[in-house]
Structures are given as structure tokens and as C-alpha cells.
């Protein structure tokens, strides 16, 4: 059957060649002046629209979308002496860091050089590496792990407070107001980079505040069963349990503590408590849980696009029919910083925008935004909330608090 085999080989080779050529023609490669096409400013966002981080990706996207709406409502972005509409194009990275990096390259080839960050530290880190290589500029909305900023990247700027603050702020909030003050604390952490960094920051803060750290347990991230860790600490009867986790593990800690009879004076957790899922999944058991958050509607500061935090919260609720929480606020803030930088630079050229970002020093609905040499936003403090009567209530900093800390938290 030599004849048919020859045909088969040639067919395949032809197919490969055709694939290569079509790929080359397909993308067109329009090089515009750094992303301005006609009357639109093109910005790229690689987000986890599917996969294990789909929920958080969706929240971030809402922030970006609200920003686009508010900016375009007031006429658009001022670039030099003309106004262009803001257009954010989204690509799904499936919650995979390598896909996120590839999408950044795709954007680069399409001439889109201003990027809004993906969700989560791993994807942000992968995207930052690609951004650095391509000379693009990225504003990071949700990659908090301090590690990202130790790599010497110059083109990534994060509007959010770093991971090491996440647990520390809860320690400050609780030790500042609790009566009776807890004496012992157990740390339960997921094993991913962000959670571990946050826990380390928390342990430091706990030691400084005079708390006795009696246990530090870890479990696999994305687990819904933390019973082993809880059973281990139950015997030591900690006054305070601090969870350095994401949503699922956070829910599991409270739920299984109930099952196993672990009754500290209160719980504090990262990421989970401010999300709507937390209260819905736990019902009454959520009351009294302290959480840390990048933003609350009580944050001080305002800007010309969103107004105050209250304004933002109201607009968000109006558009999406849900209470505004911090993941979307991070997204909106990142978009805000990028827009302000473009306006300041008077151009969408990445070099100029980058310089403008290094000089940015402004207040906003999200709090103060100013980046240090490594790209971290060092001026914005984190806040702490507590679930009271099923509602997420700000309790710290004291000058922004809606209510006092209720202690003991979970009635233990």
C-alpha cells in the first residue's frame, strides 16, 4: 500500500504547513499605538472564567466591568486631547498559570500592551513574567503573595495589600478590642504560597501582640475536610483559631469545628468571610467569624470615577444585584489605577504609562494607591470585618468601623 501511505504522509505534511500558514494569517497582527484602535482604548484581561478559581475570577471581572462602565459614562479616557472609550477584552485562563502567560503573549501580539491582572497569585506571577518579557504593563488586582515582588519585575503594579498583611490585620483587630483578650492561638493554613505567606505574617503579629502560638497545622488547599487539623488542636483548647485559607477551607473550618466540638472564643479567617458564599453556606454558624478584607464600603477616600466607597457599593449593587465585596473592588481599583496612569501619561504607550504608575499617588474609593519600588501598594491598610446578624460588618480600623467587635465571637 505504498501509494496510500505516500498520500497520507503528504497529506499530513500539507496539513501542518497549512496550519502554520493559517495561524500566521489568522491573527493579522495589527500594531496600533499601544492599544488605541480608533476611538477605543484596548485593555486585556486574562481571567479564570472556568476552573477551580472561576468564582473569584467572576467577581474580579465584575469589578473590571463596573470600571469600564463608569469610565465610559463620564465620556471615556482622556488620552492627550481626545477622549477614547475604554474597552476591556477578556480571555479565559481556566485557572491555569501557564495558560495565563500564553494569553498575555496573545494580547501582546494583538498590540494590546496594557493588562489587568488575572485572579490569584500563581496566575499573576506567571503573567508578570510574560509582561516583563514583552514590555507590557500590568496592574495586579488579586495576586497578593509577596514573592511576586521579589523577582525584580518593573512592569507589574499591585493595588492590593500584600499577603503578609492578611492575617496580621485580624490579630491587630482582635487584640485591640477583644475583652477578654485571647491568650492562645492556633493557626490552620492551606498549603499554597499565598496562605503560607499570610500565616507567617500572622504568626509574627501574634508573637508581637503577646499571643501564645500553640499550634500551626497545614492541610491541602481546596480541601473540604479539615477534621484532622481540628482534632489535633482540640485538645489544646485554643482561645483563637486563625485560618489562612480560601473559601472552601474557610467554610470547612467553621462547619467541622461545630461537628467536632472545637469551641474557641472566636475564629478569624482570610478570604472566605467577606464572600456571600460563606454566610449562605454556614447560615447562623457564620455569625461572629472575623475576616480580613482588602476593602470595605467604609473605606476612606474618593476619586473622580467611582466617588466614595459608599458610592461604589451602591453602583455595584445596582448593576449586579449583590452586595459589593472586596474581590470586585480590587478589580475596579486596578482598572482605576491604569486609567489614571494613562490619563497622566497622556498616551497609551507602555513606557509612559509605566512611568506614570510609578509616580501615582492618589486616594480612591479603594483607599490610597501609591506603589513602592517593587510595585507593591504600601500605603493602603487592610480592614477587618465580622459577620454580625448575617451581615458583613466592618470592625477595624476603628475610625472606619460600623460596629464594635463582638467577643467572644462564635459564642464559644
Amino acid at each position, binding site marked *: 500500500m505504498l501509494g496510500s501511505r505516500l498520500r497520507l504522509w503528504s497529506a499530513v505534511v500539507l496539513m501542518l504547513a497549512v496550519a502554520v500558514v493559517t495561524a500566521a494569517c489568522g491573527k493579522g497582527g495589527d500594531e496600533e499605538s499601544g492599544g488605541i484602535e480608533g476611538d477605543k482604548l484596548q485593555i486585556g484581561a486574562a481571567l479564570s472564567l472556568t476552573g477551580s478559581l472561576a468564582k473569584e475570577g*467572576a467577581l474580579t471581572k465584575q469589578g473590571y466591568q463596573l470600571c469600564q462602565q463608569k469610565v465610559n459614562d463620564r465620556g471615556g479616557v482622556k488620552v492627550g486631547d481626545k477622549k477614547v472609550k475604554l474597552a476591556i477584552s477578556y480571555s479565559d485562563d481556566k485557572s491555569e498559570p501557564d495558560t495565563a502567560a500564553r494569553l498575555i503573549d496573545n494580547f501582546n501580539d494583538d498590540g494590546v500592551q496594557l493588562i489587568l491582572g488575572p485572579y490569584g497569585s500563581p496566575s499573576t506571577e506567571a503573567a508578570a513574567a510574560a509582561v516583563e518579557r514583552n514590555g507590557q504593563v500590568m496592574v495586579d488586582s488579586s495576586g497578593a503573595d509577596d514573592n511576586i515582588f521579589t523577582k525584580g519585575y518593573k512592569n507589574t503594579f499591585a493595588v492590593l495589600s500584600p499577603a503578609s498583611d492578611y492575617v496580621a490585620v485580624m490579630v491587630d483587630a482582635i487584640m485591640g478590642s477583644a475583652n477578654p483578650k485571647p491568650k492562645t492561638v492556633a493557626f490552620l493554613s492551606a498549603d499554597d504560597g499565598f496562605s503560607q505567606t499570610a500565616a507567617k505574617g500572622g504568626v509574627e503579629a501574634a508573637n508581637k501582640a503577646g499571643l501564645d502560638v500553640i499550634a500551626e497545622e497545614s492541610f*491541602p488547599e481546596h480541601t*473540604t475536610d479539615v*477534621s*484532622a487539623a481540628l*482534632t489535633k488542636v482540640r485538645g489544646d483548647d485554643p482561645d483563637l483559631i486563625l485560618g489562612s485559607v480560601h473559601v472552601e477551607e474557610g467554610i470547612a473550618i467553621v*462547619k467541622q469545628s461545630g461537628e*467536632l466540638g472545637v469551641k474557641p472564643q472566636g475564629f478569624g479567617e482570610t478570604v472566605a468571610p467577606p464572600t*456571600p458564599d460563606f454566610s*449562605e453556606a454556614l447560615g447562623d454558624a457564620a455569625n461572629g467569624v472575623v475576616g480580613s478584607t482588602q476593602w470595605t464600603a467604609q473605606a476612606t477616600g474618593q476619586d473622580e470615577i467611582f466617588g466614595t466607597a459608599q458610592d461604589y457599593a451602591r453602583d455595584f449593587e445596582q448593576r449586579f444585584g449583590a452586595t459589593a465585596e472586596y474581590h470586585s473592588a480590587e478589580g475596579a481599583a486596578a482598572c482605576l489605577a491604569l486609567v489614571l496612569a494613562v490619563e497622566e501619561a497622556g498616551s497609551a504607550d507602555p513606557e509612559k504609562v509605566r512611568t506614570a504608575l510609578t509616580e501615582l499617588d492618589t486616594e480612591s474609593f479603594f483607599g490610597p494607591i501609591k506603589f513602592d519600588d517593587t510595585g507593591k501598594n504600601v500605603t493602603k491598610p487592610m480592614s477587618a470585618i465580622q459577620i454580625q446578624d448575617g451581615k458583613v460588618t466592618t470592625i477595624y480600623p476603628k475610625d472606619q468601623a460600623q460596629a464594635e467587635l463582638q467577643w467572644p465571637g462564635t459564642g464559644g
Partner: protein
Amino acid sequence: MSQFLQATVYGLLEGGLLALVAIGFSLVWGVMNIVNLAQGAFVITGAYIAWKLNTELGLDPYLGMFVAAAALFVAGYVIQRLLINQIVNAPIWMTLLLTFGLDLLIVQGLQLLFTADFRAINTSWGTDGFAIGDVRVPYGRLAGFILAVAVTLALVWFMSRTRSGLAIRTTGMDRAAARLMGVNVRHTYALTFGLAAALAGMAGAILGSITTFSPSAAGGYTLQSFVIAVLGGLGNMWGALAGGILLGLVQAWGGQYLSGTLVNAIAFGVLVLVLIVRPAGLVGRPYYEARAEA
């Protein structure tokens, strides 16, 4: 000591529930030599059905589970009859790929319908339980465990005392002979798969009231089903129960005495070890040791 006892009790209860998740999977593999990679997806679908009934109609998940079971029975029957039956005689990776594609469809479909939000069914008893000394026994998990045992009993009865059950067993032993005896093999296969799906859905409804779930939780349940089916011997109902309990205990003890992050590694280590040493299963013999067509 109380740590050990608590871990044991918790692991036992968890194990029973896992057995319910895996029992259908084991049945399908044992009888039809089909590995259903969409098993976890069926479980999560059951959870969503029960959750929806709970939020819309206030239906208790222990009632909702019957609805979930019925819905999934129909779905499973149709899937087997229309899809899987078409490639039963193909090389085995065909069924693996087909069920993988189904898994993708179902999980993504659930995500499109319900979003990736984490859900839980809130029951009136919540996390309450009773205590024996230092050891706490949560009501929800205890009920799940009792149900798992009851279902296993019912299944064993079904397989040995009813015509359909006997038809399933015969088909599993020797398909050609079963045909010659007048058994409608296509229908029997579909029945088996439907049954397995129904059991998975039931397990999902219970799990929904005990722990949180989202579409991405499906994969984990499929993987655990593998381990349990292999431990217990394929197609062996009591084996699945024992295998589930064993896995639950091993994971609980491992979590207590080794680093908490090793829990998953333990499960897989057990799986591989059992396969190498005693592929027929640790705790039972497979139903169909001598199969007419491998």
C-alpha cells in the same frame, strides 16, 4: 487517646458515606467492565438537585435524595442505552474517553447553570451531634452512615432476590450465556448504570447537607471511587462498604499522625499497593472472577 477515638469515629462515618459514593461505580465496573469517569459528576448533580429542592421548596435533603436518585436513574439509563452501549465492545480506552467527555459536559453544564459558587444545604440539625465522652458524633454524618449501610443491604437483597437483580448478575458473569437465556442485555446494562447513577445521586444529596460542594468537587469523588472499588473488589457490594470504611479510617488516622497534607498521598499509596499486591481486592472477592469475555 481521645484524639485517636475521635479520628476513628469520624473516619468511620466518613467512610460509610464514601462507600455510598463508590458502590455504584464498583457495580458498573464489576458487571460491565466499564470505568465511569463521570461518577463524581453524578454525585455533584445529586447534590445540586437536593440543594435546589431545598432552596426552592424547603425540601429536606433526606427526602430530596429520592428525587435526586430518581432523576439520575433516568439519566443514567438513557446515557447507557443511547451512548455507552454503542461502544461496549471497543478497546477499553473508548469507554474511558466517552465517560470523560460526559464528565466534562456534566461538570461544565452544572457550572453554567449554577455558577462556581460554593453551596451547602442547611439543615435544622446543622452540625449538632451527641457526645460519648470526649468523642463527638455529628447527627448528619451518622445518618449518612446508617443510610449507606441500609442501601448496601437493600442492594444485596435486590441483586439476589429480584429478577432484575439476578439478570444483572448473570449478565455480569457471562453476557453471551445470559442472552441465550433470554435476558435483554441492552436493557440490563442500562438498568445497572441507571442504578449506579441513582446511588451516586443519593450520596450527593446527603453530602450536600454535610459538606460544601461546587462543580469542581466532582473529580475528587471519582478518584476516591476508584480507590474504594479496587479495595473492595469490583462488583462486590459489601466490599465497597468495607473498602469505603477502610479508606475513611486510613485517611483519618493518617491525617492525625502524619502531616495533614499527606492525606491524599495516603489514599493513592493504598490504591497502588493494593493493585500490585492483590488486584482482586483486599476485603472481598470480585463477583466475577471468571469472566467470559474480558
